[in-house]
């Protein structure tokens, strides 16, 4: 063993010589490092960033393919199509919507509303065509599944675009911007990825906190439908008459609360004392999941059409508008509902009760709106 070890040490002595030579080599190496980092530091930094973006892009690709696979499998399982739906799903994933021209913004809300209606109708028709055996609830759930797969496909393509552009032009700033926003993009993509299964199986998602609370308030009461895709129940609540409104479940549906609130206000002209909106609200880092907060204004997300309509309706009648939100992050909002959010529903009802008692009088008529996607939540 010692003979074997002695051979390399002779070589080492020959090549490395005495300690002085090693010191010289090491100092030469140090100069080389300084030289390389002065002239190629930025490029090395860029290659490190490109590697990071590449690994995230790989992850996004897997998520996107998983989304497509889940959508196709669910359509085959539920919709019993006679032909392979893969081609139609691929076509669906590439659909786009062009926002209306905003050079002259007057009337843009109604133009956007019309475009969104056409889009919604077209998407539903496509789903019915792809999955002929599915019922109405399943059509809504399949549409949501495809929307999540579509979002993943879009995120992947946008990130790939900037990655390839940065690599092609060797632009540090393109790559740097992409690398800086990647943690947020990945968080959103992961949320959509976990939402896929929820949509495919019809499980409630975090965004359903509003409809869950409305459902708890209206359960067991006679219901009637209001346009569009919403249900309303008249409930006695703390001595007031509450018109409790939510999207019709349990299919994946957000309805059009803007139109529904407008209809209810018109039906009860001059009688509505307050509108209370309950929705999932984005929490800031450090805030607890499921925390309840109260405020003023229309608590509703989306493209803004419904918010506009609600504001327009309440302003015309000078009705006060209150909001109660259940805090959660974007990941929790689009993925399966967490226990903390489900448990927060009862606390939110107590908060709504306080608002009603403090801000309205006994005998008043109020509207309570549970805003959000009602997937997996009946009424």
């Amino acid at each position: 063993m010692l003979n074997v070890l002695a051979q390399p040490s002779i070589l080492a002595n020959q090549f490395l010589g005495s300690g002085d030579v090693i010191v010289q080599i090491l100092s030469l190496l140090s100069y080389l490092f300084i030289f390389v980092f002065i002239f190629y530091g930025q490029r090395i930094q860029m290659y490190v960033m490109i590697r990071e973006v590449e690994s995230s892009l790989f992850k996004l690709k897997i998520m996107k393919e998983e989304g497509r696979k889940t959508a196709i499998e669910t359509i085959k399982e539920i919709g019993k199509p006679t032909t392979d739906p893969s081609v139609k799903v691929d076509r669906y994933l590439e659909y786009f919507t062009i926002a209306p021209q905003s050079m002259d913004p007057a009337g843009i809300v109604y133009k956007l509303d019309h475009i969104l209606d056409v889009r919604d109708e077209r998407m539903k028709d496509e789903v019915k065509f792809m999955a002929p055996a599915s019922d109405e609830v399943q059509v809504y759930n399949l549409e949501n599944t495809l929307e999540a797969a579509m979002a993943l496909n879009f995120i992947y393509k946008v990130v790939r675009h900037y990655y390839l552009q940065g690599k092609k032009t060797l632009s540090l700033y393109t790559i740097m911007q992409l690398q800086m926003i990647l943690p947020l993009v990945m968080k959103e993509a992961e949320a959509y990825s976990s939402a896929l299964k929820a949509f495919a199986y019809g499980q409630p998602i975090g965004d359903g906190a509003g409809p869950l609370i409305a459902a708890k308030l209206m359960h067991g009461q006679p219901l009637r439908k209001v346009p569009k895709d919403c249900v309303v129940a008249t409930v006695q609540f703390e001595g007031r008459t509450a018109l409790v409104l939510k999207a019709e479940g349990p299919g994946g549906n957000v309805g059009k609360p803007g139109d529904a609130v407008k209809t209810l206000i018109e039906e009860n002209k001059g009688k509505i004392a307050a509108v209370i909106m309950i929705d999932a609200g984005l929490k800031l880092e450090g805030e607890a999941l499921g925390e309840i907060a109260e405020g003023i204004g229309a608590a509703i997300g989306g493209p803004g059409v419904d918010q506009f309509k609600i504001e327009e309706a309440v302003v015309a009648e000078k009705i006060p508008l209150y909001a109660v939100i259940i805090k959660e992050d974007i990941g929790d909002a689009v993925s399966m509902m967490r226990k903390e959010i489900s448990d927060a529903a009862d606390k939110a009802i107590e908060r709504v009760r306080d608002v009603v008692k403090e801000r309205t009088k006994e005998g008043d008529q109020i509207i309570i709106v549970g805003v959000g996607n009602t997937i997996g939540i009946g009424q």
Partner: protein
Amino acid sequence: MKKNANSTGSNKISTFVLAAIYVTLILSIVAIVVALGAFSEGSVEVTIYLLAIGFIALGLSGYYLFQSRKHVANLKIENPQILTAIECAKCNEKVSREFKRGDFVFKEMEKCPKCESMGRIVAIYREVKEKEKPLKV
């Protein structure tokens, strides 16, 4: 979807990078062996330099190999367990079971095991064990 299949070329750890890692690993082992030989010859200074180079290179290549494996392991998409909570309308007995397709909140369903009257789903949720410690700020 095939059109996107070869779009990035980044679907695995590059062969060149892997080769460089393995070469560094082999060279680091050689450096350590040579250091042992130099020690037996009595050259303490050479032994120290070679051992330092050997262990640094061994550490770096080991770290990168570990990272590349971790990178692949991280790509698994988790499927959390979803629970359905059912409450008896009569005796308020609550039971939880795994979610089944077709379940939805307020669905009237299976009989209560205690009083045989109809139960209804009151919640569908997932429980998450927090990995991160909350910041005390």
